[in-house]
Structure formats: C-alpha cells, structure tokens
C-alpha cells in the first residue's frame, strides 16, 4: 500500500495549492499549503480534512510532505486509532509502505 499525493486547487488560501492523499485509491485526507498570513507556519502543509476515523480530531501542520507521510503512516500503524480504515477492503493486513 502506498500513499499517493494528487495535486488539486483549493480556494481557501491565496495560492490554492492542495494535495489529495490517497491510499489504494481511497481518499483519506486533503492537505493545503498555507499562504502568507499564517506567520511561522507559512508554506507548511495543513491537514484541511481527514476522512475515516484517524487523527483523533487533530488538524496537524507539517513542514514538508515527508513529515506528512510519516504521520499518516503512524496513524495506520496504530490499529486502535485507524480501526475504521482497517475495515476497508484492500487495506486490511497489508503492510503500509511509502515512508521516506
């Protein structure tokens, strides 16, 4: 199983840069790159939306995509927090790869 990042345009930030996060064709999150007014975290990736019962209500911000990938992989590694995702056909009992 691999994480895929698919570019999209999202009208919530001035430059509109976004990425769909997909696993085996399943959409699990939308990341948006933060524009100028966000201070210290300008240019970082914000988890705009999460699909499925992962992340415990958190909306983390990542400095780069490697950090984002690492975080998503850790969510999958923890079966208690990703119980919902593990029920999805094609995700159960498959090793998650894609960490850089």
């Amino acid at each position: 199983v691999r994480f895929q990042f698919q570019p999209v345009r999202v009208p919530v930030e001035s430059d509109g840069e976004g990425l769909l996060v997909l696993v085996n064709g399943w959409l699990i999150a939308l990341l948006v790159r933060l524009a100028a007014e966000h201070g210290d975290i300008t240019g970082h990736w914000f988890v705009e939306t999460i699909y499925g019962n992962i992340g415990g209500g958190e909306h983390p911000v990542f400095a780069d995509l490697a950090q984002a990938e690492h975080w998503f992989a850790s969510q999958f590694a923890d079966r208690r927090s990703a119980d919902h995702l593990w029920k999805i056909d094609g995700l159960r009992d498959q090793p998650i790869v894609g960490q850089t």
Partner: protein
Amino acid sequence: LPDIGHQRLNRRLIAVAALSSNAGEMLSGLPFSYAQFLPHETIYAPGTELDHYLVVVDGSVCRYKVAASGAQAICSFEFPGDILNVENRSLAKSDCGARAVSSVKIAYVSRSAFDAVVCENRELDAALQRYALIRAVTAEEWLLNVGRRPDRERVAHLICEIVTRASVVDVPWDDVSSLLPSTDDLAGATGLSVVQTTRALRDLADEGAISFTGGPVSIRNMKRLEELGRFSANYLHLVEV
C-alpha cells in the same frame, strides 16, 4: 473612597443588574487583596476548591476545560469586574480552570465574608443570581456559535461579544483592543483550528472590520464587524451599556 476591586465589581453589577449604589456600599466594607498574573499564567486549575471569590480588576482571563486527550476548550472570557468563580456561591468546586489572557490583576475576597454580606442584602443577592444566570445563557449562545455558525461569522460574533462585555466597565476604547485574545485563544473559544481562525480573521480584515496581519487583532469598524457576525447583544441582557 472604595478601592479599585470594589469599583470594578460594582460597575459590572450595575451593568448586568442595575445594582443600586446602596448595595455597592455594602460591598465596599469587604477586604480585598490583590495578585498579578502574566499572560498565559494559570490562575487556578480545573476542579479547584477556592476559599475566595476572584474578581478581575485589569486585563482579561479565560475559563477553560481540558478533554482526556489534553485538548483545551475555552468556555468564557472574563473582563474587569467579572467574578471568575461565581458558581462557588452554590457549588464547592470550580469545574473550569482560569488562565490569564493578557497581564491580569485579580482581587481576592473571602467567600465566607462575601456570602455573609450577600445574605443580608436581597438586592445584592438578586444581582449576583442574575449575573450567574447571564453567564449561563451566554454559554448557550456559545453552543450556538460553535455548533451552527460558519467560521467567519463565528469569529466576528465572538469578537463583538468581547468588545461589548469589556466596554461596560469604563474601559477606554483604546484599551479594548488590548483585551482581545490572541488567535490561539480565539481558536480555543470557537472550536476552530488556529489555521481556520487565521483565515476568518484575514477575511474580516479584508472586509475592513478589523486590522489583522497575523499578530494582534484591533477593531477598525465595529458596525461592519457586527454585520458580519450578525451580532445582537440581546442575550447579554445588559441593563446599561
């Protein structure tokens, strides 16, 4: 001349309950002591049993609760003249904790001494009951705000409430902006993430209602802010603004 803690409390109770000066004089016999807190400093933790009532003299305070995950929600902001733990008139412990938003001066008055004075004065007792009920109905307005208003309207509505409540206690207009919470605290009070709150503030600035460039917020056009927040102060039940 009554000292500053009595003045602030008296002014707040006049604003919310038309307290007569006579009842205010009864309060002035109570000894107040004072303490200063830095921004973000904890004043008391959730679940504390306090021996004193704590009255805000200068600055702003938030009352907050903590989820099992450690996530914090702000349940109210308190301004000069507000009693942080008015629930202790009936309840032994304070469920919410309190934390300084800005630099804060707090007046402490003994619960037993205060309760004894209130017991002797029906008007003061009624004013404090009205004050506590207004806090409860304000929390209901916050439920509506967090649950059902879109981001920009939600943040605008909260800032309108803060300005309205802060202004009733003779706070000069120039000082009201200094009582406005940071983006982090606005996020904590609206159930939004800091990123979403920043976007809402940016939109309100684009509309000319506030000044915001990532740091502190200040008011530019209160009427516009009230329009964008669809704000009516009715639920605050102020007698006099």
